[in-house]
């Protein structure tokens, strides 16, 4: 089993954080994993994406050309990655940010709106992770939550719990 995931959007949307949580969860399940980020020249607001590979065996190139899954947070990225998706691949879209007409092959979530329900829109990435894991079951909910905890523990228990809640809300959307 080897699955290739691209998380993509603009800087500041928690793209890299989402990728980091995935690899942390993968490690908890003793999988082989790599993470590879790409940025524009700019710090915030510019296009950014990360590539995550989760596998049972040695991973050669950490670069992903034809992803199995794309988690998408911007229109530009949507247009671009829709084409590169594997034939049986899946696209997950934050539909607060990208409105599309024909969405038969796309799983959508109004992730900002969902996140804002919990007090701030910056947890949209957690909601999307929830949606993704619920649909794909690549990693266990428990490992994901452990990984989220690990990632936010320096910000205190409250933040950890809030993020887990949003993640679970995302989970429930499938």
């Amino acid at each position, binding site marked *: 089993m080897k699955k290739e995931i691209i998380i993509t*959007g*603009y800087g500041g*949307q928690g793209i890299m954080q989402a990728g980091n949580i995935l690899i942390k969860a993968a490690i908890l399940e003793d999988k082989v994993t790599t993470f590879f980020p790409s940025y524009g020249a700019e710090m915030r*607001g510019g296009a950014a994406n990360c590539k995550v590979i989760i596998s049972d065996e040695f991973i050669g190139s950490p670069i992903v050309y034809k992803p199995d899954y794309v988690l998408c*947070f*911007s*229109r530009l990225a949507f247009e671009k990655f829709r084409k590169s998706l594997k034939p049986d691949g899946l696209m997950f879209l934050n539909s*607060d*940010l990208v409105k599309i007409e024909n969405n038969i092959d796309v799983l959508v979530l109004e992730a*900002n709106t969902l996140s804002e329900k919990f007090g701030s829109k910056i947890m949209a990435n957690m909601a999307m992770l929830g949606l993704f894991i619920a649909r794909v079951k690549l990693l266990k909910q428990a490992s994901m939550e452990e990984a989220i905890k690990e990632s936010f523990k320096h910000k205190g228990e409250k933040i950890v719990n809030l993020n887990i809640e949003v993640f679970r809300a995302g989970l429930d959307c499938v």
Partner: protein
Amino acid sequence: MKKVEINREYCKCCGICIEVCPVNVLSVSKEFNTSGVHPVELIGDCIACGKCYLMCPDFAIEVKEND
């Protein structure tokens, strides 16, 4: 009469114009623009002082003859 004109697509919602407007007629809108940003909108009577123009970092504001 001159009035502020906002380019919703250029706006990054930095909030500087809102801060400097002497008559508090600028506010964040509800909708997203195509970059996922809530652009600023005019919510009152602009006195065309130009302060928002002077301070907008993103060329998103001009003060023009109302046509």
